[in-house]
């Protein structure tokens, strides 16, 4: 008997872009992306959430304050062994694995989390600092019958 195998999703190719939504106003300031936008909290057990599209990045947020893009190659090139993978549980969703937790009781992990968050913020490109509301796809609803 052993531990059940955990499906971690496919490693994304370096030439992909992924998207990180700004869940809070303080994730960007004066046109700059702040390290806080890349804080991973321990409640996010699988990794740091990203979208494979901008729409997927904001899908689970009730509000957002814009989003940024990240070239996967830049993340994989960091010396911290981060891996950008698809999320096998949800199409269109991805996870950055090996991101340390900012709220760790272990100071060395918190220090690493702050370092990584700063590096990811510098790798990222601001797309918009305005709320992003995806356009719904599909047929227009029928006008009400008069």
């Amino acid at each position, binding site marked *: 008997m052993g531990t059940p195998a955990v499906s971690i999703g496919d490693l994304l190719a370096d030439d992909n872009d992924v998207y990180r939504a700004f*869940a*809070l*106003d*303080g994730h960007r*300031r004066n046109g700059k992306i*702040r*390290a*806080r936008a890349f*804080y991973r*909290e321990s*409640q996010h057990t699988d990794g740091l959430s990203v979208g494979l599209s901008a729409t997927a990045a904001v899908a689970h*947020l*009730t509000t957002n304050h814009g989003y940024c893009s990240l070239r996967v190659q830049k993340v994989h090139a960091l010396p911290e062994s981060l891996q950008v993978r698809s999320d096998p549980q949800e199409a269109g969703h991805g996870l950055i694995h090996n991101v340390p937790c*900012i*709220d760790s009781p272990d*100071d*060395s992990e*918190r*220090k690493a989390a*702050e*370092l990584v968050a*700063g*590096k990811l913020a*510098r790798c990222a490109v601001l797309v918009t600092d305005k709320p992003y509301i995806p356009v719904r796809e599909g047929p227009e609803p029928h006008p009400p019958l008069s």
Partner: protein
Amino acid sequence: MSTLPHATVKPLNYQTSAQGLAEPFMADVEEVFSALDKIADNEKLYRPGDPKPSPENINWAKRVLLRVLPSYYLRGAEIEPLGGEIHATWEGSDKRVVAYFPRPDAVKVYYEQIVDGNVAYHDLKNVTPAGLSGILAWFFKK
């Protein structure tokens, strides 16, 4: 009795090593404490379900930041919660300092310096209020 030749008296020229300091200092300090007062009620700082800092932790952060000397080092600090903790962040063009107040009686500080786009130096320490002032002196030094 001789008098000072007024023409030779130069105006006082106060100088500081802090980055871009401008009067009034008190308004900057007030802003920080006002942000701490409002931190639990400012819904812009939270996602649904995020825990808020306890009143005890808010008081602890105030007590520590009140002891930062000189008080103008508080200028530009962003006060934000995270998972019940309080963070005070200073961000400059090449330096960043984050003071964490995870619970009453604990203060940790992360600080880093960027040179040519790379992290040249970084560390995280448990500090006293005096230690925090020292790191902020480094942050504000040009």
